């Protein structure tokens, strides 16, 4: 089967291992991911902080292109892009005037018909039902499933999982053979877009997340967002200096952990690209 894919900018650059692992796992289940042609950046935090119309027009262009390409359903692995695309669909559906302004700015037809899936929804819908017998190398580790902000909030719009103590990743990891732990920082913010402009805040916020995961005996942190990943992995020096100790618990994308359980090639899952060595 074929499913549309909106990779977003991070998955083409600093988080290319997320793209690699998504594509590798999908391929193992004969899912062909068709990239939206000539896609643009969703605008991310910068656009919605500075200019509302721009923050809706950029995601709307992506959704219009998907419609034009005949894609009925797309997967958006980046939680931040998923949030922007879903929020745009919501805003444009309830405000015809805004929709007209955005369509005019984009010069493209927009109906809002494309179904947008985050990575967990995609895995649940197309991979989990066929997982039986495929887990040949159970991911037998204690894992802290970290959801962050934009995968589960705001619940009124995303309508995915629960906003306090979500479970969808925990259930998936359980099926992959892991032992998900109960911990306190599942949905706390990692510092997100302040990574460059206020690295010290990221060290503190992400530090608390990694610190709690360690205190509760996690052997790996599992994520579904490139921003969470880069803050928890690439900013580990800032985290360790905040905590005053050296913590080397690796951070894996959920698709990498599932890929390992399926015994897929480690390099194809991009594990060598991490800053904190993946020893699990």
């Amino acid at each position, binding site marked *: 089967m074929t499913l549309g894919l909106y990779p977003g900018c991070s998955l083409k650059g600093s988080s290319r291992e997320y793209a690699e692992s998504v594509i590798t796992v999908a391929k193992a289940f004969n899912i062909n991911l068709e990239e939206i042609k000539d896609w643009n950046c969703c605008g991310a935090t910068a656009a919605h902080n500075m200019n509302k119309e721009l923050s809706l027009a950029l995601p709307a262009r992506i959704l219009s292109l998907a419609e034009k390409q005949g894609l009925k359903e797309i997967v958006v692995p980046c939680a931040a892009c998923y949030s922007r695309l879903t929020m745009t669909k919501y805003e444009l559906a309830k405000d015809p005037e805004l929709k007209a302004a955005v369509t005019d700015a984009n010069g493209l037809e927009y109906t809002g018909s494309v179904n947008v899936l985050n990575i967990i929804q995609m895995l649940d819908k197309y991979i989990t039902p066929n997982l039986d017998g495929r887990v040949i190398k159970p991911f037998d580790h204690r894992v802290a499933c970290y959801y962050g902000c934009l995968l589960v909030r705001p619940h009124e719009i995303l309508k995915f999982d629960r906003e*306090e103590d979500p479970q969808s990743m925990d259930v998936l990891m359980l099926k992959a053979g892991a032992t998900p732990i109960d911990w306190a920082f599942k949905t706390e913010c990692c510092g997100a*877009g*302040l990574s460059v402009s206020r690295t010290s805040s990221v060290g503190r916020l992400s530090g608390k997340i990694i610190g709690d995961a360690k205190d509760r005996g996690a052997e790996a942190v599992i994520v579904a967002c490139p921003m969470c990943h880069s803050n928890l992995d690439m900013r580990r020096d800032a985290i360790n200096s905040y905590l005053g100790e050296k913590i080397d618990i690796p951070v894996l994308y959920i698709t990498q952990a599932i890929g390992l359980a399926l015994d897929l090639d480690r390099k194809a899952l991009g594990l060598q690209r991490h800053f904190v060595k993946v020893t699990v």
Partner: protein
Amino acid sequence: MDYPPSVIMRMLQTGIPNLEDKVLRSFSIWVCLTCEMCFARCPMSIDIPKMMDFLREKSINEKKANPKAKEIVAFHKSFLDSIKYTGRLYEIGLFVDYKARTLKILDDLALAPKMMKRGKLNLIPEMIKDRSGIASIFRKSNKKNKN
């Protein structure tokens, strides 16, 4: 944060222009990460993150952005400039532009070679074909904005 979100809501609620001005000049509105936690837990279901977006846009348009937020605003501007010209985020371009705006030349300099080694930095930007379409989106959505 100079004022917590609950206090910002109260300040706006009073309708006193001087307090609104203080909110627009506050550091809080820029250090807010839009994590959506306050909205999730607000007993009155106030969409605070959406209000924060509105306040930030107004603060920029009225040139009231808090001086302590200089780097944060510079980062957003560099980010949007990168998309405006190539359609997608070009990370090296973003860093160079941000450094030029803030003169934080040495910050994160050690990170670039480490990212490069791991194949996480593209030397050449990914250019989309319809760049004039993107330019037009920026032009039309900027009509109401001064930035």
